[in-house]
Protein backbone atom coordinates (compact mmCIF):
# COMPACT_ATOMS: atom_id res chain seq x y z
CA UNK A 1 0.00 0.00 0.00
CA UNK A 2 2.94 2.31 0.61
CA UNK A 3 5.40 1.81 -2.20
CA UNK A 4 7.00 5.22 -2.41
CA UNK A 5 10.80 5.13 -2.53
CA UNK A 6 12.55 8.09 -0.99
CA UNK A 7 15.38 9.61 -2.93
CA UNK A 8 17.30 12.16 -0.92
CA UNK A 9 20.38 12.42 -3.10
CA UNK A 10 19.08 15.13 -5.47
CA UNK A 11 17.98 17.17 -2.47
CA UNK A 12 21.40 16.89 -0.86
CA UNK A 13 23.03 17.91 -4.11
CA UNK A 14 20.99 21.10 -4.32
CA UNK A 15 21.23 21.88 -0.62
CA UNK A 16 23.72 24.73 -1.13
CA UNK A 17 21.27 26.37 -3.54
CA UNK A 18 18.43 25.89 -1.09
CA UNK A 19 20.44 27.43 1.74
CA UNK A 20 21.31 30.37 -0.43
CA UNK A 21 17.64 30.81 -1.23
CA UNK A 22 16.97 30.61 2.51
CA UNK A 23 19.31 33.54 2.98
CA UNK A 24 17.37 35.45 0.34
CA UNK A 25 14.16 34.67 2.24
CA UNK A 26 15.68 36.01 5.45
CA UNK A 27 16.92 39.05 3.59
CA UNK A 28 13.63 40.02 2.00
CA UNK A 29 11.73 39.37 5.23
CA UNK A 30 14.13 41.46 7.31
CA UNK A 31 14.17 44.29 4.81
CA UNK A 32 10.40 44.38 4.62
CA UNK A 33 10.27 44.46 8.42
CA UNK A 34 12.57 47.48 8.51
CA UNK A 35 10.43 49.29 5.94
CA UNK A 36 7.30 48.06 7.72
CA UNK A 37 8.48 49.41 11.08
CA UNK A 38 9.21 52.87 9.72
CA UNK A 39 5.94 53.11 7.78
CA UNK A 40 3.99 51.42 10.59
CA UNK A 41 5.22 54.03 13.08
CA UNK A 42 4.20 56.84 10.76
CA UNK A 43 0.78 55.24 10.13
CA UNK A 44 0.18 54.83 13.86
CA UNK A 45 1.14 58.43 14.63
CA UNK A 46 -0.96 59.78 11.75
CA UNK A 47 -3.96 57.77 12.92
CA UNK A 48 -3.54 58.99 16.49
CA UNK A 49 -2.84 62.67 15.87
CA UNK A 50 -4.26 63.71 12.53
CA UNK A 51 -7.60 64.21 10.86
CA UNK A 52 -8.56 64.68 7.24
CA UNK A 53 -7.07 63.07 4.11
CA UNK A 54 -3.89 61.79 5.80
CA UNK A 55 -5.94 60.04 8.47
CA UNK A 56 -8.11 58.38 5.84
CA UNK A 57 -5.09 57.34 3.80
CA UNK A 58 -3.44 55.73 6.84
CA UNK A 59 -6.66 54.08 7.93
CA UNK A 60 -7.31 52.65 4.46
CA UNK A 61 -3.77 51.27 4.39
CA UNK A 62 -4.22 49.51 7.71
CA UNK A 63 -7.66 48.20 6.77
CA UNK A 64 -6.54 46.85 3.39
CA UNK A 65 -3.34 45.30 4.72
CA UNK A 66 -5.10 43.53 7.57
CA UNK A 67 -8.32 42.49 5.90
CA UNK A 68 -7.30 41.20 2.48
CA UNK A 69 -5.19 38.11 1.68
CA UNK A 70 -1.45 38.75 1.64
CA UNK A 71 -1.33 36.92 -1.67
CA UNK A 72 -3.67 39.48 -3.26
CA UNK A 73 -1.43 42.26 -1.96
CA UNK A 74 1.55 40.60 -3.63
CA UNK A 75 -0.41 40.16 -6.85
CA UNK A 76 -1.31 43.84 -6.76
CA UNK A 77 2.36 44.85 -6.80
CA UNK A 78 3.12 42.21 -9.42
CA UNK A 79 0.27 41.86 -11.89
CA UNK A 80 -1.74 44.87 -10.73
CA UNK A 81 0.96 47.42 -11.37
CA UNK A 82 2.06 45.39 -14.38
CA UNK A 83 -1.33 46.06 -15.97
CA UNK A 84 -0.49 49.76 -15.80
CA UNK A 85 2.86 49.15 -17.44
CA UNK A 86 4.87 49.33 -14.25
CA UNK A 87 6.96 46.18 -14.07
CA UNK A 88 8.81 45.47 -10.83
CA UNK A 89 11.40 42.75 -10.37
CA UNK A 90 10.22 39.69 -8.41
CA UNK A 91 12.37 40.82 -5.45
CA UNK A 92 10.78 44.28 -5.52
CA UNK A 93 7.28 42.81 -5.78
CA UNK A 94 7.79 40.68 -2.69
CA UNK A 95 9.52 43.49 -0.81
CA UNK A 96 6.69 45.93 -1.56
CA UNK A 97 3.97 43.40 -0.82
CA UNK A 98 5.43 42.26 2.47
CA UNK A 99 6.29 45.82 3.54
CA UNK A 100 2.74 46.92 2.78
CA UNK A 101 1.35 44.05 4.80
CA UNK A 102 3.79 44.39 7.73
CA UNK A 103 3.27 48.15 7.95
CA UNK A 104 -0.47 47.63 8.32
CA UNK A 105 -0.16 45.07 11.10
CA UNK A 106 2.67 46.91 12.86
CA UNK A 107 0.73 50.18 12.78
CA UNK A 108 -1.89 48.58 15.01
CA UNK A 109 0.79 47.14 17.31
CA UNK A 110 2.44 50.53 17.60
CA UNK A 111 -0.88 52.23 18.27
CA UNK A 112 -1.42 49.89 21.21
CA UNK A 113 2.15 50.55 22.34
CA UNK A 114 1.70 54.32 22.26
CA UNK A 115 -1.50 54.03 24.23
CA UNK A 116 0.27 51.96 26.88
CA UNK A 117 2.82 54.71 27.60
CA UNK A 118 1.21 57.18 30.03
CA UNK A 119 0.56 60.72 28.68
CA UNK A 120 2.40 62.03 31.68
CA UNK A 121 5.70 60.77 30.24
CA UNK A 122 5.25 63.19 27.35
CA UNK A 123 4.36 66.00 29.74
CA UNK A 124 7.39 65.31 31.90
CA UNK A 125 9.66 65.35 28.85
CA UNK A 126 8.13 68.57 27.52
CA UNK A 127 8.35 70.21 30.94
CA UNK A 128 12.14 69.75 30.75
CA UNK A 129 12.19 71.87 27.59
CA UNK A 130 12.39 68.98 25.11
CA UNK A 131 10.80 69.60 21.72
CA UNK A 132 8.02 67.32 20.60
CA UNK A 133 10.49 65.45 18.34
CA UNK A 134 13.00 64.98 21.17
CA UNK A 135 10.31 63.80 23.56
CA UNK A 136 9.07 61.22 21.07
CA UNK A 137 12.44 59.93 19.88
CA UNK A 138 14.14 59.86 23.29
CA UNK A 139 11.34 59.09 25.71
CA UNK A 140 8.17 57.74 24.10
CA UNK A 141 9.31 55.58 21.17
CA UNK A 142 11.99 53.66 23.12
CA UNK A 143 9.29 52.68 25.62
CA UNK A 144 6.88 51.76 22.82
CA UNK A 145 9.52 49.48 21.30
CA UNK A 146 9.83 47.55 24.48
CA UNK A 147 6.07 47.09 24.68
CA UNK A 148 5.77 45.89 21.07
CA UNK A 149 9.04 43.96 21.01
CA UNK A 150 7.55 40.46 21.12
CA UNK A 151 4.75 41.22 18.64
CA UNK A 152 7.51 42.65 16.44
CA UNK A 153 9.42 39.37 16.61
CA UNK A 154 6.23 37.50 15.73
CA UNK A 155 5.73 39.74 12.75
CA UNK A 156 9.26 39.00 11.49
CA UNK A 157 8.57 35.28 11.74
CA UNK A 158 5.32 35.83 9.93
CA UNK A 159 7.17 37.78 7.22
CA UNK A 160 9.61 34.91 6.73
CA UNK A 161 6.80 32.41 6.33
CA UNK A 162 4.71 34.73 4.20
CA UNK A 163 7.59 35.40 1.82
CA UNK A 164 6.98 31.88 0.48
CA UNK A 165 4.09 33.43 -1.46
CA UNK A 166 6.87 34.98 -3.51
CA UNK A 167 7.13 31.82 -5.59
CA UNK A 168 3.75 32.70 -7.11
CA UNK A 169 5.20 35.87 -8.60
CA UNK A 170 8.34 34.18 -9.84
CA UNK A 171 10.64 34.97 -6.95
CA UNK A 172 13.28 32.29 -6.35
CA UNK A 173 13.37 32.55 -2.57
CA UNK A 174 13.38 29.35 -0.50
CA UNK A 175 9.96 28.10 -1.64
CA UNK A 176 10.45 29.24 -5.22
CA UNK A 177 13.80 27.50 -5.36
CA UNK A 178 12.32 24.36 -3.84
CA UNK A 179 9.49 24.36 -6.32
CA UNK A 180 12.01 24.78 -9.13
CA UNK A 181 14.08 21.76 -8.09
CA UNK A 182 11.09 19.64 -7.13
CA UNK A 183 9.46 20.05 -10.50
CA UNK A 184 12.68 19.18 -12.28
CA UNK A 185 13.32 16.00 -10.29
CA UNK A 186 9.78 15.01 -9.23
CA UNK A 187 11.14 14.46 -5.68
CA UNK A 188 8.45 16.79 -4.42
CA UNK A 189 8.00 15.32 -0.97
CA UNK A 190 11.73 15.19 -0.24
CA UNK A 191 12.38 18.74 -1.36
CA UNK A 192 9.52 20.26 0.59
CA UNK A 193 10.36 18.22 3.68
CA UNK A 194 13.91 19.52 3.70
CA UNK A 195 12.72 23.05 3.00
CA UNK A 196 10.30 22.84 5.92
CA UNK A 197 13.29 22.02 8.13
CA UNK A 198 15.19 24.99 6.75
CA UNK A 199 12.21 27.29 7.49
CA UNK A 200 12.04 25.85 10.97
CA UNK A 201 15.73 26.51 11.57
CA UNK A 202 15.45 30.08 10.24
CA UNK A 203 12.53 30.81 12.57
CA UNK A 204 14.29 29.27 15.56
CA UNK A 205 17.34 31.35 14.73
CA UNK A 206 15.22 34.52 14.66
CA UNK A 207 13.60 33.70 17.98
CA UNK A 208 16.96 33.01 19.65
CA UNK A 209 18.51 36.16 18.23
CA UNK A 210 15.53 38.18 19.35
CA UNK A 211 15.79 36.81 22.87
CA UNK A 212 19.49 37.65 23.05
CA UNK A 213 18.88 41.13 21.70
CA UNK A 214 16.12 41.71 24.26
CA UNK A 215 18.52 40.84 27.07
CA UNK A 216 20.95 43.44 25.80
CA UNK A 217 18.39 46.13 25.06
CA UNK A 218 16.02 45.94 27.98
CA UNK A 219 17.94 45.97 31.21
CA UNK A 220 15.16 47.72 33.09
Amino acid at each position, binding site marked *: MFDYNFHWRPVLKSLPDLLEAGLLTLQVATLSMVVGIVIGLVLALVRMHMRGPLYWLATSWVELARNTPALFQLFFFGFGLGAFGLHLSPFAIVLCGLSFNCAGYLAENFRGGFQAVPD*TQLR*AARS*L*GMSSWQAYT*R*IIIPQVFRIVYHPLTNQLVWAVLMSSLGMLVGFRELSGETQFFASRTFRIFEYFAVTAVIYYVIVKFILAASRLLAMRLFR*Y
Partner: protein
Amino acid sequence: MIEIRGLEKYFGALQVLKGIDLDVEKGEVLSVIGASGSGKSTLLYCINGLEPIQKGAVIVDGTDVHAKGTDINKLRQKLGMVFQQWNSFPHLTALENVALAPKIVKGKSRAEAQAIAESQLKHVGLGDKLNVYPGALSGGQQQRLAIARALAMEPTYMLFDEATSALDPELVGEVLDTMRLLAEEGMTMICVTHEMGFARDVSDRVAYFHQGVMEEIGPPEQIFGDAKSENTRKFLANVR
Protein backbone atom coordinates in the same frame (compact mmCIF):
# COMPACT_ATOMS: atom_id res chain seq x y z
CA MET B 1 9.19 87.04 38.61
CA ILE B 2 6.02 85.22 37.59
CA GLU B 3 3.03 87.46 36.88
CA ILE B 4 -0.40 85.98 36.35
CA ARG B 5 -3.06 88.34 35.03
CA GLY B 6 -6.77 87.57 34.75
CA LEU B 7 -6.06 83.94 33.92
CA GLU B 8 -9.06 81.94 32.73
CA LYS B 9 -8.96 78.30 31.74
CA TYR B 10 -11.68 76.05 30.42
CA PHE B 11 -11.81 72.30 29.83
CA GLY B 12 -14.59 72.24 27.24
CA ALA B 13 -17.50 74.08 28.83
CA LEU B 14 -16.13 73.67 32.34
CA GLN B 15 -14.32 76.71 33.66
CA VAL B 16 -11.56 75.60 36.01
CA LEU B 17 -9.76 78.92 36.56
CA LYS B 18 -11.95 81.99 36.89
CA GLY B 19 -9.70 85.00 36.58
CA ILE B 20 -6.55 84.46 38.66
CA ASP B 21 -4.25 87.39 39.49
CA LEU B 22 -1.06 86.48 41.25
CA ASP B 23 2.57 87.60 41.44
CA VAL B 24 5.39 85.38 42.65
CA GLU B 25 8.65 87.16 43.45
CA LYS B 26 12.09 85.60 43.06
CA GLY B 27 13.12 83.68 46.15
CA GLU B 28 9.56 83.29 47.35
CA VAL B 29 7.97 80.00 48.39
CA LEU B 30 4.26 79.97 47.66
CA SER B 31 2.06 77.08 48.72
CA VAL B 32 -1.25 76.57 46.96
CA ILE B 33 -3.86 74.67 48.92
CA GLY B 34 -7.48 73.77 48.28
CA ALA B 35 -9.83 70.89 47.64
CA SER B 36 -9.39 68.56 44.64
CA GLY B 37 -10.78 70.14 41.50
CA SER B 38 -10.21 73.68 42.72
CA GLY B 39 -7.81 74.39 39.84
CA LYS B 40 -4.50 74.33 41.72
CA SER B 41 -2.72 71.83 39.48
CA THR B 42 -4.16 73.36 36.34
CA LEU B 43 -2.63 76.66 37.43
CA LEU B 44 0.84 75.07 37.36
CA TYR B 45 0.23 73.54 33.93
CA CYS B 46 -0.82 76.98 32.66
CA ILE B 47 2.33 78.56 34.10
CA ASN B 48 4.69 76.38 32.07
CA GLY B 49 2.43 76.23 29.03
CA LEU B 50 1.56 72.53 29.20
CA GLU B 51 -2.09 73.65 29.09
CA PRO B 52 -3.31 76.41 26.77
CA ILE B 53 -5.32 79.22 28.35
CA GLN B 54 -8.42 81.00 27.10
CA LYS B 55 -8.02 84.45 28.65
CA GLY B 56 -5.47 86.51 30.54
CA ALA B 57 -1.72 86.07 30.57
CA VAL B 58 1.14 84.37 32.36
CA ILE B 59 4.38 86.35 32.22
CA VAL B 60 7.66 84.78 33.32
CA ASP B 61 10.58 87.19 33.61
CA GLY B 62 8.92 89.51 31.13
CA THR B 63 8.04 86.80 28.58
CA ASP B 64 4.41 85.96 27.86
CA VAL B 65 4.21 82.16 28.12
CA HIS B 66 1.20 81.79 25.86
CA ALA B 67 2.11 84.40 23.22
CA LYS B 68 2.48 83.03 19.69
CA GLY B 69 6.14 83.87 19.12
CA THR B 70 7.37 82.59 22.49
CA ASP B 71 10.03 79.88 22.39
CA ILE B 72 8.26 77.69 24.90
CA ASN B 73 10.99 75.03 25.03
CA LYS B 74 13.48 77.68 26.01
CA LEU B 75 11.17 79.24 28.57
CA ARG B 76 10.45 75.86 30.19
CA GLN B 77 14.12 75.54 31.04
CA LYS B 78 13.49 78.24 33.65
CA LEU B 79 10.49 76.39 35.04
CA GLY B 80 11.34 73.08 36.65
CA MET B 81 8.32 70.89 37.26
CA VAL B 82 7.75 67.95 39.57
CA PHE B 83 4.62 65.87 39.09
CA GLN B 84 2.36 63.97 41.41
CA GLN B 85 3.10 60.73 39.56
CA TRP B 86 6.85 61.21 39.53
CA ASN B 87 7.19 60.26 35.85
CA SER B 88 10.73 59.05 35.92
CA PHE B 89 11.73 57.67 32.52
CA PRO B 90 11.73 53.89 33.10
CA HIS B 91 14.12 53.00 30.27
CA LEU B 92 16.94 55.22 31.55
CA THR B 93 19.12 54.87 34.64
CA ALA B 94 18.91 57.52 37.33
CA LEU B 95 21.99 59.21 35.90
CA GLU B 96 20.62 59.11 32.34
CA ASN B 97 17.24 60.40 33.53
CA VAL B 98 18.90 63.51 34.90
CA ALA B 99 21.63 63.96 32.27
CA LEU B 100 19.41 63.65 29.18
CA ALA B 101 17.78 67.08 29.12
CA PRO B 102 20.99 69.07 29.86
CA LYS B 103 22.58 67.17 26.99
CA ILE B 104 19.92 67.34 24.30
CA VAL B 105 18.09 70.52 25.32
CA LYS B 106 20.93 72.68 26.57
CA GLY B 107 23.58 71.14 24.32
CA LYS B 108 26.02 70.28 27.11
CA SER B 109 28.68 67.70 26.37
CA ARG B 110 28.16 64.16 27.61
CA ALA B 111 30.78 64.56 30.33
CA GLU B 112 29.36 67.90 31.50
CA ALA B 113 25.80 66.58 31.55
CA GLN B 114 26.86 63.55 33.57
CA ALA B 115 28.76 65.71 36.03
CA ILE B 116 25.68 67.90 36.52
CA ALA B 117 23.49 64.83 36.91
CA GLU B 118 25.80 63.27 39.42
CA SER B 119 25.96 66.38 41.55
CA GLN B 120 22.18 66.87 41.46
CA LEU B 121 21.56 63.25 42.41
CA LYS B 122 23.95 63.65 45.34
CA HIS B 123 22.12 66.85 46.22
CA VAL B 124 18.86 64.95 46.69
CA GLY B 125 20.54 62.05 48.45
CA LEU B 126 20.68 59.56 45.57
CA GLY B 127 24.46 59.59 45.10
CA ASP B 128 24.59 55.82 45.52
CA LYS B 129 21.86 55.12 42.93
CA LEU B 130 23.40 56.58 39.80
CA ASN B 131 23.22 53.45 37.67
CA VAL B 132 19.97 52.09 39.02
CA TYR B 133 16.82 51.98 36.87
CA PRO B 134 13.77 53.75 38.32
CA GLY B 135 11.92 50.46 38.60
CA ALA B 136 14.29 49.50 41.40
CA LEU B 137 13.71 52.72 43.35
CA SER B 138 11.01 53.41 45.94
CA GLY B 139 8.35 56.04 45.25
CA GLY B 140 10.13 58.55 47.45
CA GLN B 141 13.43 57.93 45.69
CA GLN B 142 11.76 58.26 42.29
CA GLN B 143 10.25 61.56 43.34
CA ARG B 144 13.65 62.82 44.49
CA LEU B 145 15.03 61.63 41.16
CA ALA B 146 12.35 63.75 39.45
CA ILE B 147 13.41 66.74 41.56
CA ALA B 148 17.07 66.20 40.61
CA ARG B 149 16.05 65.92 36.95
CA ALA B 150 14.26 69.26 37.08
CA LEU B 151 17.12 70.92 38.99
CA ALA B 152 19.69 69.76 36.43
CA MET B 153 18.23 72.29 33.99
CA GLU B 154 19.18 75.02 36.51
CA PRO B 155 15.67 76.46 36.61
CA THR B 156 14.84 79.82 38.18
CA TYR B 157 11.51 78.51 39.41
CA MET B 158 10.32 75.13 40.63
CA LEU B 159 6.70 74.05 40.31
CA PHE B 160 5.60 71.17 42.52
CA ASP B 161 2.31 69.49 41.66
CA GLU B 162 1.26 67.57 44.77
CA ALA B 163 4.71 66.06 44.87
CA THR B 164 3.94 63.88 47.88
CA SER B 165 0.32 62.88 47.48
CA ALA B 166 0.98 59.68 45.51
CA LEU B 167 3.55 58.44 48.02
CA ASP B 168 3.20 55.96 50.83
CA PRO B 169 2.99 57.87 54.12
CA GLU B 170 6.42 56.77 55.32
CA LEU B 171 8.05 58.13 52.17
CA VAL B 172 6.52 61.61 52.31
CA GLY B 173 9.10 62.89 54.78
CA GLU B 174 12.15 62.39 52.57
CA VAL B 175 10.58 64.30 49.70
CA LEU B 176 9.40 67.13 51.93
CA ASP B 177 12.91 67.35 53.40
CA THR B 178 14.33 67.74 49.90
CA MET B 179 11.80 70.48 49.15
CA ARG B 180 12.68 72.21 52.44
CA LEU B 181 16.34 72.08 51.48
CA LEU B 182 15.57 73.81 48.18
CA ALA B 183 13.54 76.48 49.95
CA GLU B 184 16.42 77.15 52.33
CA GLU B 185 18.75 77.51 49.36
CA GLY B 186 16.57 80.34 48.09
CA MET B 187 14.80 78.57 45.20
CA THR B 188 11.60 80.23 44.02
CA MET B 189 8.90 77.62 44.45
CA ILE B 190 5.20 77.21 43.80
CA CYS B 191 4.00 74.13 45.65
CA VAL B 192 0.53 72.75 45.15
CA THR B 193 0.23 70.66 48.25
CA HIS B 194 -1.97 68.87 50.74
CA GLU B 195 0.79 68.93 53.34
CA MET B 196 -0.46 71.64 55.68
CA GLY B 197 2.59 71.32 57.93
CA PHE B 198 4.87 72.02 54.98
CA ALA B 199 2.71 74.92 53.81
CA ARG B 200 2.76 76.45 57.28
CA ASP B 201 6.46 75.98 58.07
CA VAL B 202 8.18 76.54 54.76
CA SER B 203 6.06 78.97 52.72
CA ASP B 204 6.34 82.72 52.63
CA ARG B 205 2.74 82.90 51.47
CA VAL B 206 -0.14 80.49 51.22
CA ALA B 207 -2.92 80.76 48.61
CA TYR B 208 -6.25 79.05 49.08
CA PHE B 209 -8.09 78.02 45.90
CA HIS B 210 -11.81 77.34 45.88
CA GLN B 211 -13.73 76.31 42.76
CA GLY B 212 -11.37 78.03 40.34
CA VAL B 213 -11.03 81.22 42.35
CA MET B 214 -8.10 82.30 44.50
CA GLU B 215 -10.16 82.90 47.57
CA GLU B 216 -7.44 84.15 49.85
CA ILE B 217 -3.68 84.66 49.92
CA GLY B 218 -1.43 85.72 52.76
CA PRO B 219 1.36 84.72 55.10
CA PRO B 220 0.90 81.28 56.65
CA GLU B 221 0.21 82.68 60.12
CA GLN B 222 -2.74 84.60 58.76
CA ILE B 223 -4.16 81.77 56.61
CA PHE B 224 -3.79 79.13 59.28
CA GLY B 225 -4.47 81.38 62.28
CA ASP B 226 -6.86 84.04 61.16
CA ALA B 227 -8.35 83.26 57.73
CA LYS B 228 -10.69 85.96 56.47
CA SER B 229 -12.75 83.78 54.15
CA GLU B 230 -15.37 81.45 55.47
CA ASN B 231 -14.45 78.83 52.80
CA THR B 232 -10.80 78.85 53.85
CA ARG B 233 -11.74 78.30 57.49
CA LYS B 234 -14.08 75.45 56.53
CA PHE B 235 -11.42 73.77 54.36
CA LEU B 236 -8.77 74.03 57.04
CA ALA B 237 -11.13 72.73 59.70
CA ASN B 238 -11.74 69.66 57.52
CA VAL B 239 -8.14 68.82 56.70
CA ARG B 240 -6.85 69.14 60.20
